[in-house]
């Protein structure tokens, strides 16, 4: 029941945020140099005055600004993201086609980063001050400092060109396979891009897990657990982990925006067919509806993810919100 109230309380804020983003989208399009109608007309190859006027009417560009804003926002609410100038396909359809690919990539990377990062962080906290701590810390720091695309290129260089272990481009082989073989093929292609994305973000989780578990381990109830005779392993899993995870889950929600940004670069480097790539191609073609559509969808995902993490936190720690 408490979860439900939390959700209800969250809703107006989220809607307001989304509306604000939509508004910003709208403003950005209008700020773009050049008259949108002229751009579209130019692309269509017919640029005489009457055609431009017709386009203007079609897209509703001749109406007063308030009407345009209102109609834009209502269309957003309905999930209508407009039509791509280039391909005349509905933007939402284009995005829906490529969204799974991005989700696979970012989801895998996120899980990997959190899991491995937490493990390293906790290991580092248990070996505090020792060489392992220093090694892990340095490794995290190194990962954090590396540009995303450089890491990707390096990995391709080492693992793909030199060693030939993993494919360098695309999500699946050119000859499509079926069923289970397809799954394995995708996973094979997934390794390098996901690893690149994960390495970068892992550093944050390592540090966070380390300080978080150090903090928890200093608490009294841990001492009680030890005194009760629980082994180190049991203490770790049962108590330390659950409490130390809270800031990590919070951080994961906050990092999502950065994850999406990194995904764009990775998708470009590895030719991964996701929405980041879509946005980039659209950018080169000045196809603003697509870019803004992707932008909006990513923002929605971040907002939703924040909700999920908030609810998850409330589940894990019933003390929140009481």
């Amino acid at each position, binding site marked *: 029941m408490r979860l439900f109230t939390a959700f209800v309380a969250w809703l107006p804020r989220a809607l307001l945020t989304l509306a604000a983003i939509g508004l910003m989208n709208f403003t950005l399009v209008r700020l*773009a140099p050049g008259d949108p109608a002229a751009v579209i007309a130019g692309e269509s190859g017919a640029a005489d005055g009457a055609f431009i006027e017709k386009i203007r009417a079609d897209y509703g560009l001749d109406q007063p600004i308030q009407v345009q804003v209102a109609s834009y926002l209502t269309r957003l609410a309905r999930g209508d993201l407009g039509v791509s100038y280039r391909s005349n396909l509905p933007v939402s359809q284009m995005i829906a086609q490529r969204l799974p690919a991005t989700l696979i990539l970012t989801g895998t990377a996120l899980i990997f980063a959190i899991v491995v990062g937490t493990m390293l962080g906790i290991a580092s906290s248990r070996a*505090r001050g020792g060489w392992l701590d220093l090694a892990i810390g340095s490794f995290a720091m190194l990962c954090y400092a590396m*540009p995303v695309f450089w890491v990707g290129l390096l990995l391709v*260089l080492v693992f793909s*060109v030199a060693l030939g272990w993993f494919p360098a481009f695309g999500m699946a082989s050119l000859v499509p396979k079926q069923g289970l073989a397809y799954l394995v093929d995708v996973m094979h292609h997934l390794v390098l891009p996901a690893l690149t994305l994960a390495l970068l973000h892992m550093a944050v989780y390592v540090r966070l897990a380390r300080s978080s578990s150090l903090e928890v381990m200093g608490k009294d109830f841990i001492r009680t657990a030890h005194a009760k005779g629980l082994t180190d392993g049991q203490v770790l899993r049962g108590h330390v982990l659950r409490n130390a995870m809270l800031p990590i889950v919070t951080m994961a929600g906050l990092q999502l*925006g950065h994850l*999406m*940004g990194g995904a764009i670069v990775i998708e470009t480097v590895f030719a991964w067919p996701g929405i980041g790539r879509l*946005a980039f191609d659209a950018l080169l073609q000045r196809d603003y509806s697509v870019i803004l559509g992707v932008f909006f969808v990513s923002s929605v995902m971040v907002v939703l993810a924040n909700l999920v993490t908030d609810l998850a936190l409330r589940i894990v720690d019933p003390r929140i919100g009481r």
Partner: protein
Amino acid sequence: MLSLIALVALLAPWIAPHDPWALLGQPLAPPGGDFALGTDMLGRDLLSGLIHGARVSLLIGLASSTCALLIGVGVGALAGYFGGIVDRVLMRFTEFFQVIPAFLFAILLVAIMRPGLKSVIIAVALVTWPPVARLVRSEFLVLRSREFVEAARSLGLGHWQIMVREILPNALPPVIAVGSLMVATAILTESSLSFLGLADPNLISWGYIIGSSRSVFRDAWWLSVLPGLCLFITVLSINLLADGLGDAGNPLLRSGRDTAA
């Protein structure tokens, strides 16, 4: 933990001379000069490209961080000092910018404005300011209830004077640490933008070199690896410096020690 702090503080000045700052003193090598590091696909000298790129990357990093700092400190100070409705509105505003996927937003901004030095700086600044605002706000919140603020107010100092002359100097140490980290982030963001070809095409930057070398990647791998190495070392040394600064300026912060029984 103290030994770790000392180690980091020691490492920072040692790493710093490796920072490409040293390269700024040399006279600009004309493209096509010495071929110490090889040439790119158009015959341009890589070494000069790296040196010029150093100037660009650092320039953009510093410029955009300064802008971001100004915005962040401004917003945070106002929010933290005045509290109440000002605080809530400003914090909503900051949250809004934090929800937006940062890099996407930067790309969008650069696309909308004409690609150029200024737009890159503005875009990067607009994307990196929120964390500073939050930090400054919390610092101000803590500091404004201190006695010296009351003393200042009883002396008749106006709001602005109190904020700038009294509270701000005390709020600065963590801001400096975060600020140096922001420079690193700004450099990385700029490099990603130029890698994608979205930055000023008249300026050579490391990201641009890497991006434009992608087509000859398999044969001329050094064109991609070396500029990235430069980026990496730069960012790493800034991070170490920031760590050293942060720890030195605030020895009580993040001690990580167990609370003594």
